[in-house]
């Protein structure tokens, strides 16, 4: 089943380089000083006029900490609410018989097929009506960013699969011990689906942290910008100063790279088999 090892390595090294090259090129540009032509042919991958001035310059002009903070608040609460609401909704769907179960099941399944992009306009009108926009205040602004993504049908089905795989005997034992449904959920079932919760948390976090369309629709105040909106805005502030734009972009991806590298086994080992999102 082996393909020639040398050929495999050559192909994979090439693809790996192509995968990271755009980021390396941004880093290279961000480290070049004013004395070096960033448009030089042939291009210099190693900066000739090495400097960190672009970083200090862009850091002084743009409030990155504010963007980080906003993104962190939005991502944190989006993850927490998704974990809670998705697993809560998944529990009766996986474990109980009740009137209207089929209706609830198919209603949730239907929302998996509705793309957010097709309903974003009414969602925006609803958010306006509820006054959950940044001009009304930071709390309202955060809520407007969080609530439309606070639960996903995808998450509910992911958790339902996890609950289905737990043997019924676990619950029966808990019932004999005198547990009620609420205790069974929090004390017996949730601890057993921790790996799935971790996967849901990680993928929800990545999605929320990188989300661009929705925040760019609802946000109007710069102090409420999340990272992607703020980074896109750099293009407007520094028009063609690519040294600053590159430095700002590099600053913005450090947290997510650290996050990815420390949790990489969740991403690349195929443990996330169930986490396929259309």
């Amino acid at each position: 089943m082996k393909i020639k090892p040398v050929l495999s390595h050559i192909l994979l090294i090439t693809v790996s380089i192509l995968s990271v090259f755009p980021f390396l090129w941004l880093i290279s540009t961000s480290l070049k000083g004013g004395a070096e032509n960033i448009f030089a042919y042939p291009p210099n991958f190693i900066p000739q006029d090495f400097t960190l001035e672009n970083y200090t310059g862009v850091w002084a002009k743009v409030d990155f900490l504010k963007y980080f903070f906003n993104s962190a608040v939005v991502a944190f609460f989006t993850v927490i609410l998704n974990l809670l609401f998705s697993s809560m909704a998944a529990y009766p769907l996986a474990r109980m018989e009740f009137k209207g179960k089929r209706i609830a099941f198919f209603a949730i399944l239907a929302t998996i097929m509705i793309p957010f992009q097709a309903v974003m306009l009414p969602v925006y009108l609803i958010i306006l009506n509820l006054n959950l926009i940044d001009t009304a205040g930071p709390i309202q602004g955060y809520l407007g960013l969080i609530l439309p993504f606070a639960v996903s049908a995808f998450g509910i089905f992911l958790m339902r699969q996890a609950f289905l795989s737990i043997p019924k005997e676990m619950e029966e034992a808990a019932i004999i011990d005198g547990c009620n449904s609420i205790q069974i959920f929090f004390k017996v079932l949730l601890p057993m689906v921790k790996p799935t919760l971790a996967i849901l948390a990680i993928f929800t976090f990545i999605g929320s942290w990188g989300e661009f369309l929705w925040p760019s629709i609802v946000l109007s105040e710069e102090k409420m910008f999340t990272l992607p909106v703020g980074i896109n805005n750099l293009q407007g502030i520094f028009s063609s100063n690519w040294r600053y734009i590159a430095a700002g972009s590099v600053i913005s991806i450090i947290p997510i790279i650290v996050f990815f590298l420390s949790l990489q086994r969740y991403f690349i080992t195929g443990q996330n088999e169930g986490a396929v999102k259309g």
Partner: protein
Amino acid sequence: MYKFFGKYVPYLFLVPALVLLGIFFFIPFVQTLGLSFYDYSENLYNPVFAGLGNYFTVFKDPVFIKVLLNTFVFLVVVVPFLTIFPLFLAILVNQKLRGMKLYKVLIYLPVVVSIVVCAIAFKWIYAEHGIFNYFLSVFGLNPVGWLTDTRYSLFSVALVTIWKGIGYYMVIYLAALMSVPEELYEACEIDGANSWQKHLTVTVPHLIPTIALVSTISAISAMKVFAEIYVMTKGGPLNSSKTIVYYIYERAFENLDLGMASAMAVILLVIVLILSAINIFCFERDKYRI
């Protein structure tokens, strides 16, 4: 207290999710249909009922026809590539050789980085005096306006979508490869097949359901492409890289033509609904069985 709630327990657990999905999916879904029957183009605050008028307007709009065509071309470019190439990579990276973990991490990296930064990085590569034009000059070719030439802009955007998606689909294939029984390869080896023949006769047929799954989910996400276009081209030049979600965004939030935007949203909805239904009822049936 528990006795009192007893038979309501399932509903209590479902309420938060159903309320949120109701407010942010069902009501907007109905509203999108409703808005699409009203004409907002004359007066934003006093729309008039137009029946199917917006749909006629949409299909008579040359920009929308262009946008539909662009979206179709985008799909035709992106989907086959994201379906086939990640499978090839997954087979390569699934071997027991040194360094495979590092390759997986590096190839997956673009998946986790915000699309905005990815698009900015490519904008820099596509620049007039950027890296791509340098490579052309090495071969004595004239520079190309990767994002500013109507002939290339859509394909330049598609390349970013492909580049960012490869790792994601590779991992889906990796998970599926684990389920291919080892004995099948051994049987093949006895027949004297070489490694490529083995993968063609064993791996690929075994992975047909996954290949079908990847092709539909990559098609669904290609239908929704937005950020790459917003950051790199704003749909230009001359609408050459404008796809359906970008045009809906433009009509809804820049031109405030809510009726026409909603009619286009309904068209998007129908297309994605069909793709999702294929996916759910054919390829992921087990996951969605009540």
